């Protein structure tokens, strides 16, 4: 009866189904404490990993949303600093935020920031490394922290308006337009940079291992030197 596997199956199921009225009152209280502690840990991790979404929705609405996400997609491993994969997709289905479709984009960007923060270390390629002639057959390797995407909302500007060095009214000055965003970690801090949308195809080509001469064709019609300079300055390559 007290076989460990059977006990864990029953206890885990009781926590998961939020059984409010088990026959044993003391056991019910303990289950409630463990359920609360475990759910709060997941919610706190989401709050840490999605501070801009949290600021945009307000604390109360975020807590309710985080609780719903933790229930739908609980942590699968102990590293809660990496918890929150899929939160952006969850937000598209979360009815209370249906009027805020751009929250999904912000959540996607914040997820990239978390991934960038804990990605492997590598020295970022800088302008000096490329001072000489670059062979068109060379392949540029993305830095392990580099993430990028194009969105219908101004994600990079919204994110930057929430950083400590932004002014209090920075969010009011964000122009509502599509933005492509680049997430990098050239030194100790994660950077979010707005990039020319054509750079996205170029970064995809580099990620796919295309030689520079081929990858650069994606930039046809753009300011190639400017785009390239932005990517190098941000530390997109290793």
């Amino acid at each position, binding site marked *: 009866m007290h076989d460990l596997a059977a006990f864990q199956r029953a206890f885990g199921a009781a926590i998961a189904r939020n059984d409010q009225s088990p026959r044993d009152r003391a056991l019910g209280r303990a289950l409630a404490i*463990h359920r609360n502690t475990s759910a709060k840990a997941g919610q706190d991790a989401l709050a840490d990993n999605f501070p801009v979404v949290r600021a945009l929705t307000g604390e109360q609405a975020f807590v309710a949303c985080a609780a719903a996400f933790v229930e739908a997609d609980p942590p699968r*491993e*102990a590293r809660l600093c990496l918890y929150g994969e899929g939160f952006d997709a969850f937000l598209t289905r979360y009815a209370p935020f249906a009027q805020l479709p751009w929250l999904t984009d912000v959540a996607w960007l914040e997820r990239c920031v978390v991934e960038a923060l804990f990605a492997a270390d590598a020295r970022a390629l800088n302008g000096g490394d490329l001072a000489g002639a670059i062979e068109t057959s060379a392949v540029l390797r993305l830095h392990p922290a580099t993430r990028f995407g194009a969105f219908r909302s101004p994600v990079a500007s919204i994110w930057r308006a929430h950083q400590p060095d932004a002014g209090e009214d920075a969010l009011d000055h964000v122009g509502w337009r599509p933005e492509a965003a680049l997430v990098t970690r050239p030194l100790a801090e994660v950077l979010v940079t707005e990039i020319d949308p054509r750079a996205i195809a170029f970064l995809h080509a580099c990620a796919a291992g295309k030689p520079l001469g081929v990858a650069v064709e994606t930039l046809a019609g753009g300011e190639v030197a400017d785009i390239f300079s932005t990517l190098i300055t941000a530390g997109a390559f290793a």
Partner: protein
Amino acid sequence: MTCTAGLGLKTQHLDEILTSRDPGLWFEVHAENYMVDGGPRLAALAAVRDRHPISIHSVGLSLASVEPPDPASLRRLADLVARFEPIAVSDHLAWQKWNGVHHADFLPFPRTRAALETVADNVQRVQEALSRPILVENPSLYVDLPGHELSEAVFLTELARRTGCGLLLDVNNLYISASNIGFSAAAALDLIPGDAIGEIHLAGHDADPALDSRLLIDTHGTAVAEPVWELYERLIARIGPRPTLIERDDRIPAFATLMTERARAHNLLGRVVLTDA
């Protein structure tokens, strides 16, 4: 052994930690926060390690699970331990994993002889992966489960005897368990063999505001309570000084406030007179 007092590493205090020169000061980190590929957090830990000893406290090996510790997690922990050479590596007498879900808490189980075999197997797997003994901590208990065959003290003592692991005695957890379940914390404390105890934890707790104010919850959100300090003094008078950690994970005060609390443990450790000596 570094038989002095340490603090949990809080990154918001990093600058003060890096300049602090207090004798014997060491820092403990939760392993899972650092089991990552790279980045500034690992770099900060390396900077702390250059100046102070550190201890690695895991909160996720799920030692009391029927399934053995996840090999990928063990590998990451082994890498961390190899890189930072901590004074101690520890986890809890509890489980977290069930059906693919990780419950970020320390869940209880009936302490049967069969469970002892399972936990001992898991502890041995961890020790083999790390090539060193670990310490196993008593968790806070909120219910007296039916089906226990062994007391916590006997279970832990037997686990240490079988696996060669040491024990991390969390005096606050013991106080909470005793209060919630209804046994004498002092009597239970006296049963744990001193030579197995490799580290001591001290932390604050709160009465449960929502469910039942008679229940104490292990929140790590307040200063260490006086009855916990009394138990601590009783313990070190019996077993002698041990590395002692002041844990604080919620409502984190200024570094100086934590250092004042740490000084109390440091001073007690410095003037221990063994009662049996």
